[in-house]
């Protein structure tokens, strides 16, 4: 009896979870403002982004870079379809601001000189 109840509960929850995404399906035919703006700006040969696919690819990449599963949905929620797709395609080339200096030895000396003459500005931020 308990087993049956549990199965039923799981099924109800599963349906409830699925329905969270359902408004998107219902509204799929209405085109959002951003899609209109992007269409007016973008080259015609670029297809509209498939959000589900782009999300999946972005999720994989972020996970590989150490993003916690629990944070994943929040991180993706604020991105537009084309941002998701760019993230999925070009994450490796995208600059990540974090003051990472991973060079040593002779390069470091060169950097010091460049800093001294004002070409670069790395060391001043450490007070």
């Amino acid at each position, binding site marked *: 009896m308990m087993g049956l109840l549990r199965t039923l509960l799981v099924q109800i929850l599963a349906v409830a979870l699925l329905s969270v995404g359902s408004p998107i399906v219902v509204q799929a035919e209405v085109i959002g403002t951003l899609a209109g703006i992007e269409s007016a700006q973008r080259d015609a040969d670029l297809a509209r982004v498939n959000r589900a696919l782009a999300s999946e690819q972005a999720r994989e990449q972020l996970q590989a870079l150490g993003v916690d599963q629990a944070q994943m949905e929040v991180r993706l929620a604020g991105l537009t379809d084309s941002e998701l797709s760019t993230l999925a395609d070009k994450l490796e080339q995208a600059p990540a601001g*974090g003051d990472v200096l991973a060079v040593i030895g002779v390069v470091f000396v060169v950097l010091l000189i460049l800093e001294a003459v004002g070409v670069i*500005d790395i060391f001043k931020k450490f007070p």
Partner: protein
Amino acid sequence: MRRLALAGAVWFLLIAQSGCTLNPPHFAPEETAGLPAQAELTQVPFFPQKEHQCGPAALATVLRSSGAAGLPNELANEVYLPGRKGSLQVELIAAARLRDRLTYEVSKDLPSVMHQVAAGSPVLVMQNLGITPIPIWHYAVVVGYDLDAGTLVLRSGTTERRVMGMRRFMSTWNRAQRWGFVVLEPGQLPADAQLDRYVAAAAALEAVGKLDAAGRAYARAHEQWPQSAWPQLGLANVSYRRGDRQAAEGGYLTTLELDPRNVVAHNNLAEILSDRGCVSQARAHADRAAALAKGTTLEAAVATTAQHVAGATTAGSGVSCPP
């Protein structure tokens, strides 16, 4: 002797590239028109960064000064990427959107940054503190400037009030494609507001489901640019997504008065009209949308609408349809 000449040439090039000069940069008079000689937003909070976390710290700074919540350690969960020891630009934008804030990318010149500051908005900027082949990406927040001294004031890293020469700043900003943005309460316009950029930022809020924020931004844009169809379309789409189909229908019709060639308005109007049984009117709008969308990214979406309309049934005599 040749060696000496070579060394001299190298130094000359280095100095020339760095713009090593005591003179403040010159701006065209129209670029600085209306700018006070100095400004500093002293009330902008300061969050000293932890290692590699200039992204969360800078984002918290601009969010807080726009009245939104968010501490660096909370934001780190959304914008810090451990595998890259840093934060991506697009994730900073996304995190601000989720807090109902509109992010507006600033024009890529220093006077525009100063205009934002003078109007009360600190500017989150990306800098490359290294050189192009060995980049060191950094985020900081411009909170002040002094035209006579040729300096900027930044919240940067662990320094609350970093005073930096404009020329030196420009070389670090140039190497980061002069990227920067302000965070606004929706309904607030930035200094130097450009229709396309503002409406696209509002549309991004709509796209991620921040309907209230999007609606307020569209309303403000409509006030500012009453002849543009996009803010009107945005308002109609927000009404639709809130379930107010009557307001949406009216909004799409107004959009088409402003721009009879707006594909999205034709398409969405076709959807609404066919759902309430005005099939012949729906078909006319669907046909128009299909013709206008040919060869664009919207072609497939418009074709789906046409199928939907083709399968609709005409309502009885009780329904009043637009002419």
